[in-house]
């Protein structure tokens, strides 16, 4: 039933998502069935058809470059799981 090319652990890693073994097995079947359904698109001839990214194309939207007020620094840092000295704290990235 499941799509042989669908390697759930590899895709989950790309998505930065850890999964349990049970989730991996369940998703393999469920997402595999969704992909089988999606296969119906292959019978559609889309030669020469432009892709639609947005239904109402608007281009080069600009606004005046005026200084405005930003959110207060304390309010934003207050939302971070860890913050100190006006900085967000994360695990060490550079050895």
């Amino acid at each position: 039933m499941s799509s042989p090319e669908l390697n759930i652990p590899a895709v989950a890693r790309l998505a930065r998502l850890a999964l349990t073994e049970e989730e991996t097995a369940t998703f393999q079947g469920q997402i595999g069935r969704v992909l089988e359904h999606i296969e119906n698109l292959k019978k559609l001839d889309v030669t020469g058809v432009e892709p639609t990214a947005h239904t109402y194309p608007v281009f080069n939207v600009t606004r005046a470059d005026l200084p405005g007020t930003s959110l207060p620094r304390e309010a934003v840092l207050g939302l971070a799981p860890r913050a100190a000295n006006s900085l967000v704290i994360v695990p060490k990235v550079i050895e």
Partner: protein
Amino acid sequence: MDLAKLTISEIQQGFRAGTFTPTDLLRTLELRIQSAEPTIQAFLSRDFQTALKEAGSADVSLPLGGIPIGIKDVINVKGQPCTAASQILRGYTAPYDATVITKLRAAGAIPYGRLNMDEFAMGSSTENSSYQVTKNPWDTSRIPGGSSGGSAAAVAACEVPAALGSDTGGSIRQPAALCGCVGLKPSYGRVSRYGLIAFASSLDQIGPFARTTRDCALLLNALAGRDPMDSTSLDRPAEDFTAQLGRDLQGVRLGIPKEYFVDGMNPNVRATVEAAIKQCADAGAELVDISLPHTEYAVSVYYIIATAEASANLARFDGVRYGKRADAPKDLMDLYLRTREEGFGREVKRRIILGTYVLSSGYYDAYYLRAQKARTLIRRDFEAAYEKVDAIVCPTSPDVAFPLGERTNDPLKMYLADIFTIAANLAGICGISVPGGFVEEGGKKLPVGLQFLGKSLDETRLLSIADAYENASGWSKETAPL
């Protein structure tokens, strides 16, 4: 007179005549909420004291002065929780107002309460909320629809006269249909998305729930308009969306798409919708048979594009700047992996994986690009149809509200039920669901939605048609037996 059952238009008459005040209304609604919520569970939270202060100083001369509006938990209201019904945002407090909230406040309305939803708006039953299960007020053993199930249930249970939701593939229209209220998805670009937690940015629109089409039009008057903070919002001349209400259906050409009456629909829903369409004809509408030939591809296109966009949008929930962070991460990768594992629910994970897969190297052309091209064909189907008709009429959902728990283990079946609503998002057009009759199941009356689809930016006419049907049918006067 039960204030909780009034429409916005009726409330305004009461305010202006001095029969009752915004404070009277809010107190009545709060009592109603207290009696209904133990069963319905539409609200994740609410702040009665703040709302009471706002009611006390409300200016009832404003277009929505003193009207409490429930807000789906995916739209930021400054100082209030905003979790998208996800554990990854548990405890998050919005630091700013979404543009729609700024606009509602400017019109005098009072944002009241945070309404339950499927986590990150991913679902059709509100059972994917990580906090609680909302019940359908018509039969509390059934789902309210989704993803804006809390918004629909709160309006149907007379806990608020109106609410905001968001619609990516039917998340306003489908719960409105299943709960027997009116729900409007505006055209893409009509309403600013600034301050809406993004699911699929090329499909998402915010829109209103209310008891009548007229009330939805009043709300759209307040919500619509260009916003410098959302570059996809469109610059259009101001319109009064109530301008063409109160008309009849004489001379209106309604298209009936043959692809929207399919095998596998609930036969009672089909019969009810066919009877409703006959009511449109009796009221003067000219019925025109049309075809939307690419309908069979819509679910596939939608679940590629929506999940692809979602996988990118939800990358921001990484445990660094806001929201949940896993305990004692050993390095940055471990922090990402476990924060997202612990913070996201099952449907969200499923969609992130599907979206990541269809965008991944080697598959992009076969899935995402092909889906975008098929999207063009779906859009053209509608453009061709609107050369012949003023609006399309069809069912909102192939079924009535189903029993809680019935479909939670079968995602594909859940996705296929979105067939009648998702094409409108793919095409960027506007759509509305209004009560179209009832079906009896298990001794309970269950609402059936009638959907009208209008061409892009044609809301004034769409609302005129829906209002005319509503007045001819009288269904919107029915209230849930709660």
